[in-house]
Structure formats: C-alpha cells, structure tokens
C-alpha cells in the first residue's frame, strides 16, 4: 500500500483530512450512503445467522466492503449495467434489488437472479474474473448503440491474477469501451494474501499494461470513493474509454460461511483492520459534521431492522421452485428430446415417486 498516493478524504478515526467537497454538507448523499451501509451490515449479520441455522446455503459476507459497494451503487445510473462478482449484495441492494431475492439466491434458488429490479444487471458471477469480459461485451453493446450508459465490473484482488482480467482490460483499452473496473482489494483471496498474488505493488498498475487509466483509492472512505468513481464513470460515459479503480479494503469476515479465517489470518491484522472499517468511520464523520445524531441513528436502525425482517420473512415464505424449472429455462423452447426427462422428473417428485419428499434417500 503506497499510502502516500492513495486517494483519501477521511482519516480512519473519522476526521476529515482535507477540505471536503461541498456536496458532503449540501446534500444528504452521505446520510443516504450511511443508511445503505447500515442496512448492508444488518443484512450481512442476518444472512450469516440464517446460514448457521440451516436456513441459507453458503454465504459470502460483505463485512468491510460496504463503502465500496454503496458508493458504486449510488454513483451508477439506474440504466447502467453492473457485472458483479459474488460479494456485491450491498451494491445490488442500492441498485434496487430487494433483499429477499439476494437471500433467495444464496438459499439455492435460481429465481433470486430473476428479479425484474435487476434490470439488465448481470447475475452474481462465481467463476473468478469472467464477469470482467461480460462487462466489456455489454459495454460494446452500449457503445454500438451510441447510448451514454456504462458497464461496471467488480472483482477481487485475487481475480486480478486470472488472465480474463488482463484480456478484459486490454480489449477495453483498445476499443475504448465505456466500462469501469473496480477491484475490491480486501487483501485476501480466501487464504492467499495479497503479497502472494502479484509482485506488483499497486494492483491499479495492471491498467498500465493495457493503456487504461487507473487510480488507487481508500475503499473504507466513502467520499474518496465517490470522487474516484465520478472521474471514472464520467470518463467512460463521455466516450473517453475505460477506467480502473483499485479500492483498498479489508475482508473483516471469513471468506464465506464455509471458511474459517482463523486458520490462516493473523489475529493482529484483523484487529488493526477493524480500526479502518468504513461504517464507523462514516458514522463518526456524520456526527462530527453534525449531519447525524444518536436519536436519528436509533430510529434508522429500528427502521432498517423492520425492513430487513420483512424481507427475511418474504424469503422464508417463498415456496421452493417447481422441479420442472430446470427444464423450462434451459432453452427458450423445450426440445422434444427433453420432454421425456421432464415428465420423469415431474413424476418422480410426486408421492410414491423416487424423489418424493420424505423418500428413502432423504
């Protein structure tokens, strides 16, 4: 981390490091961001609890990355296209996706990625770095149709090692695509620390290999993030080509609920990282700027908790998808060759069938 060249406005303790942009006090943008980040934090805790009690599948926590996701979500236009990876629930929620669908996805239901609110955003992408190419393809479509929309790809620090990312940066550069890549450098790729991923000291330097302008920003600092994102998005939107942002954060959670970071992560490092975390930092700043107080905070948390409870309830009450969905969305039309298998599948799940609920194997 070259702290010196890192874009940063708020110190870890919540103090402004420099004169803040006027919109900080002249708009409710910061409060809005705070609201989203708080909701993300609550959501995260709840999702982990649901997983621990067998009500959700494996889940990837967003703890520590709330500022990045919220800033991206808030700076994008509704009609822009997001190509997320699997850790961008907060961004998805800011973009209007109700939490129930996110739970649905992590609960093992494909319909979680079907919500109309996702518009043309890509669904969660699990195969590392592959989404960066989708963003380029989508960006090409926008450029081709001469729209002033942009595509935004998010990825982790580990993902920067996979060739796809280099290929995406390269084609974005040479075709001047309206796409912005945002690395959430949370210092770990499961158990592999940043230092074992690459010898380059700044991941933003990966842009240099492709002629793509890049900037490194404090990913725990919502103001710095907005500044960086505005530059990047504007560049892309105005037809000047792609941009790369490396946002430095820290994964305060396990990799997923299937992981135990204690096996590999020094306790001391985690302790230090908590001192930098984005939510407390913004909260302190808001109090300091007198944009926020305890009373409003309590009310907000109460409000958000109610919202969340309603979403969780809706999720838990959603009936399982019909088994035949696996046939019905394979192609636009069911090919006759699959008709027999579909019938078989449907019959098997009925009482007396080999896959009936409560059958021998369950």
């Amino acid at each position, binding site marked *: 981390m070259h702290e010196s060249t890192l874009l940063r406005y708020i110190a870890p303790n919540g103090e402004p490091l420099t004169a803040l942009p006027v919109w900080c006090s002249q708009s409710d943008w910061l409060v809005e961001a705070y609201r989203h980040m708080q909701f993300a934090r609550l959501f995260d805790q709840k999702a982990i609890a649901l997983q621990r009690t067998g009500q959700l599948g494996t889940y990837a926590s967003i703890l520590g990355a709330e500022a990045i996701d919220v800033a991206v979500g808030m700076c994008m236009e509704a009609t822009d296209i997001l*190509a997320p990876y699997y850790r961008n629930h907060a961004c998805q929620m800011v973009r209007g996706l109700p939490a129930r669908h996110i739970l649905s996805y992590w609960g093992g239901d494909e319909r979680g990625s079907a919500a109309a609110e996702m518009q043309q955003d890509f669904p969660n992408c699990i195969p590392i770095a592959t989404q960066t190419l989708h963003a380029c393809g989508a960006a090409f479509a926008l450029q*081709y149709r001469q729209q002033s929309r942009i595509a935004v790809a998010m990825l982790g620090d580990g993902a920067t090692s996979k060739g*796809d990312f280099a290929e995406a940066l390269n084609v974005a550069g040479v075709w001047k695509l309206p796409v912005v890549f945002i690395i959430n450098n949370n210092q770990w790729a499961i158990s592999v620390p940043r230092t074992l991923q690459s010898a380059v000291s700044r991941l933003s330097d990966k842009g240099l290999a492709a002629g793509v302008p890049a900037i490194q920003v404090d990913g725990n600092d919502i103001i710095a993030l907005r500044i960086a994102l505005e530059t990047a998005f504007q560049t892309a939107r105005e037809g000047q080509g792609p941009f790369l942002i490396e946002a430095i954060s820290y994964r305060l959670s396990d990799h997923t609920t299937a992981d135990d970071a204690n096996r590999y992560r020094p306790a001391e490092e985690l302790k230090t990282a908590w001192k930098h975390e984005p939510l407390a930092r913004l909260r302190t700043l808001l109090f300091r700027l007198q944009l926020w107080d305890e009373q409003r905070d309590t009310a907000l948390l109460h409000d958000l908790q109610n919202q969340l409870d309603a979403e969780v309830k809706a999720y838990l009450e959603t009936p399982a998808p019909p088994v035949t969905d696996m046939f019905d969305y394979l192609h636009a039309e069911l090919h006759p060759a699959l008709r027999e298998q579909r019938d078989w599948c449907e019959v098997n799940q009925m009482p007396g069938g080999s896959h009936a609920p409560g059958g021998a194997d369950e």
Partner: protein
Amino acid sequence: MNNAITLLEAVNLALNHALRNDSDVVLLGEDIGVNGGVFRATAGLQATFGEHRVLDTPLAEAMIAGLAVGMSSQGLKPVAEIQFMGFIFPAMEQLVVHAARMRNRTRGRLSCPLVVRAPYGGGIHAPEHHSESTEALFAHIPGLKVVIPSSPQRAYGLLLAAIADPDPVLILEPKRIYRSVKEPVTDDGKPLPLGRCYTLRPGRDITLVSWGAMICETLKAAETLAEEGIDAEVIDLVTLNPLDIDTLLQSVTRTGRLVVVQEAPRTCGIGAEIAASVSEHCLLSLQAPVRRVSGYDTIMPYLKLEQHYLPNTADIVQAAKQSMEAL
C-alpha cells in the same frame, strides 16, 4: 443467385444476409475483418458493413467468448469465429459456465443469443491442433446447441437458424469440405430447422448416420454398397445436441442395422451416445450390434499419418457389410 457455390461461400452468404437484415448482428473474431478470415468465410463483410459490425479482435479466445456473452446479454446477436476448433479451449469456460447457463441462471431474465463458428476436422494437411474433431465435448453440455452442416444449403440455412435462435449455438464447419462440395443456394434468408436430422438417402437394408465431412465418405459408401445390392439409408445428424433420436429410431426400426461414422476418437464420442440410445430403445429391432466407424483413441497425427487416422469409404463399406452379415 442460383449458381453452385461452396460451403464456405454459403457461410459468407448467410452472414451477409444476417448483417444486412438485422442491425443487432455483429461478427467478431481473429482476422475476420480486412483479411476476411483465414478461410475467407467473412471475406468482404467488413468492407461492406464496416469495422463496427465486423470486428477484428485482439488474440484471445476467452475474451472472444466472454465478449459474446456480454454482447448477447444486451440483445446483440454476436457471431464469433474461433479460428480453428483446436483453439476453442480457452473459450470453453465462458461457453460452458456462462453462455449455456445465462437463461437458466436468471430464469429467462437474460439470455445469450450468440453463435460461435469454428472450422473443425482433419484431412487438410494442416499443422498440429488444426485437425481435431472434439464436438462431443460440447454435445455433453446442457444448454449449448451444437450444429454441424455438411452441404452449402444446410450451411446457409442452419447458420441463419443459429443466428435467429434465442440461445447459444455452436456451429462447427467441416473445413475439409469447405470448398469441395458445391450446390446452388437460394439467398432467401430462410432458416432450416435446428434440432433434427436430415435423411440424405433413403434405404431399406441398413442405416448409416454421420455428420460433417464424413458425410461425403458415407454417401460414397452407400453408393458402393448399392452396387453390391445393399440399400443403405444415409442420415446427416446435423444437430448433435439436442439429438433428434426419433428420426434415428424410426430408421433403425425399419432397417434393423446401424453404422455410426465419426471422425473423432471413438471413446465417449457422439457415436457412443447414438449407439447407446439406439440399443436402449430398439434392442428388439436390431439385427446386428450398432457398429462405430471412428478415429482412433489416439492423438490426431500430423499430416504424414493423418490419412491413416481418418476413417475412409472402405472402412464404412466394410463395417456395413459386417453389420449385414451379423447375427
């Protein structure tokens, strides 16, 4: 436009038609622009339709496939060329984990109406990796349609159908017969149906099924067999996934005998699926075991030995005769 043209020219004609009539169609690939493709399948198209519609890409197949996924999710209809099928492997991740799954994954919210074209197969004395037939790898992937035309007319109609198809289609073009088979093709923009076999020659005694370049040897074998009084039905499989097994079953139910002819290595090839399905459904009608004429389970040799690897007419005739004698 009723002059006889080659399969390659038919591909070009179909692409031209699609570009002309649908502004959502874009072509992308290595050397497809000014150069018109290393086989000239896209010759003249960039000059006609412009650089924004016929795109010379940087050299990266994962990128080509990933771009096509992204483009098609936005409703464009990208037709990507993989220069040779031997170089399709870097594109496989995108094709298998994304193109084939986007509709299912989003329950229809997004889809990937993309086409990937790749010349495949041996017999043109090309260097290493330019002669393989690995179609079976793709036919095993749910969500990916795999189509192989073996005549100019079918190349034209099937490519248009693939472009019109709302889902991803892999079209493998048998490069050995790119220029050798000619027939008149009407440039009427009419797609041919995907997902069904084409019976090229009706016959009573035995069914021969093949696809791609081997169709030529198979038809020749049928002629030879006819001279010897054996009336062979020849079926062009055309769509490898999903399989039109009904047409095959109907034929075998009549003839009682089946030889599958494939250029690819035998083990786990398409021939295995056909033999398995037919044996499963027609065991009682079968008067002889389904025989497979195929490449060996070895690596496709360089040009000095490639003719020894590729099945030929004599092999097919021999297998058919053995089938006629069996039981």
